[in-house]
């Protein structure tokens, strides 16, 4: 008995912002006492509350492993993924959770991400080629070297969690600002050797609410859970645009089709794939 008591997990207080439209006139904070065994993530704590204390508590989550990007919340003073942060690592016996700032609240911890996705769509987040025929009826793959991959791969890690726009002080006062996520994605494609769409994206990027609204507060890069470093992407894009305006950049030419792989012999050390079982 005494042993089990000694092993009993510590308790932490989860203080969660609640807002139920039509019921609450304004948001309120509600406290829950949650047992915190080793390894408990903030998301685990919320699930425990929902199962044991209060089924009305709402938030978004899915993968529980920092991949889907749906569980970003404002946790103890920073926008973070609930599933990727352990309670023990927050070094506090009080976990204060609010919905991501700068997005309207749908209910409790659920932010309205629609304007965020609209901004993402506005910068045309796909490879743009002059030769549409090849895109519609592909005959091969566009060539890309390992070095060319490194130019953009870090920016392609974005999971669209929206944390960066919550941290950005420019977003706080300018609704129309494209924001770190969309701008970083614009650069992700422009920096891609296979893309030819810089000119097509220019209007959005150069608009009064585009890249030059960024004054490098750096908070987006600080909170990004995937190491995307959106602030870096935006500055690289500004550099590119400056060079382009000064005539220092050549016209963008997307890479050619890679020659088909011929006479390919699998390496000996790779085990053979199992036979089809169906």
């Amino acid at each position, binding site marked *: 008995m005494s042993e089990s008591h000694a092993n009993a997990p510590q308790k932490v207080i989860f203080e969660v912002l609640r807002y139920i439209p039509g019921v609450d006139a304004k948001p309120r904070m509600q406290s829950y006492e949650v047992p915190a065994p080793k390894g408990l993530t903030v998301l685990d704590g919320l699930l425990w509350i929902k199962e044991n204390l209060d089924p009305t508590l709402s938030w978004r989550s899915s993968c529980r492993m920092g991949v889907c990007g749906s569980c970003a919340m404002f946790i103890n003073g*920073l926008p973070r993924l609930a599933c990727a942060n352990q309670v023990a690592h927050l070094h506090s016996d009080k976990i204060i959770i609010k919905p991501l700032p700068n997005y309207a609240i749908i209910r409790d911890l659920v932010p309205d991400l629609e304007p965020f996705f609209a901004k993402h769509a506005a910068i045309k987040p796909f490879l743009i080629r002059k030769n549409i025929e090849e895109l519609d009826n592909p005959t091969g793959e566009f060539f890309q070297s390992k070095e060319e991959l490194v*130019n953009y791969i870090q920016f392609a890690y974005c999971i669209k969690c929206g944390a960066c726009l919550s941290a950005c002080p420019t977003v706080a006062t300018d609704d129309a600002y494209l924001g770190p996520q969309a701008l970083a994605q614009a650069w992700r494609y422009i920096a891609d050797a296979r893309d030819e769409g810089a000119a097509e994206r220019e209007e959005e990027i150069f608009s009064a609410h585009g890249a030059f609204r960024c004054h490098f507060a750096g908070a987006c890069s600080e909170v990004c859970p995937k190491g995307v470093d959106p602030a870096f992407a935006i500055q*690289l894009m500004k*550099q590119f645009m400056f060079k382009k305006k000064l005539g220092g950049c050549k016209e963008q030419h997307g890479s050619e089709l890679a020659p088909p792989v011929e006479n390919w012999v699998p390496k000996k050390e790779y085990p053979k794939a199992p036979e089809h079982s169906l």
Partner: protein
Amino acid sequence: MTDEKNHLSNKLGIWGWLGGGRYGLERYAYTLHRLTGLGLLLYFILHIFVTGSRLGGPESWSASMAVYETGLFKIGEFLVFVAFIYHGLNGIRLGLTELGFLMGKPERPLFPYRSSVMRQRPVLIVIMVLAVILILAGGLDFFVLTSH
């Protein structure tokens, strides 16, 4: 305040400049840069009015100058100097970063991630130290060496 979709607004507004979270130095440098920028703009507008008093002849010029010799204006002038030093020095850093310097090269993201913001941070710190030294030297000149 709810919008047309009946969602509650959660916009930080101007509060988002001042605080709103446990962020790093650069975000506060951003706020100070904007505030000093606005302060300098205000000063330039006032400056045009003050120098405009020249048009009223030497008497009106000396009369307005006598007003600006008073203690309060001296502090104001010093604040303009502080704003100028900070805005100028930090502006050099921002100019360099916005042209893509000081921040390294893109790399494969490997955990634990290190961002470009951390790579340029030493420059921010050097610039802050420089700003403090210049402001102290300026303060000495403003209030000690030139006061009679």
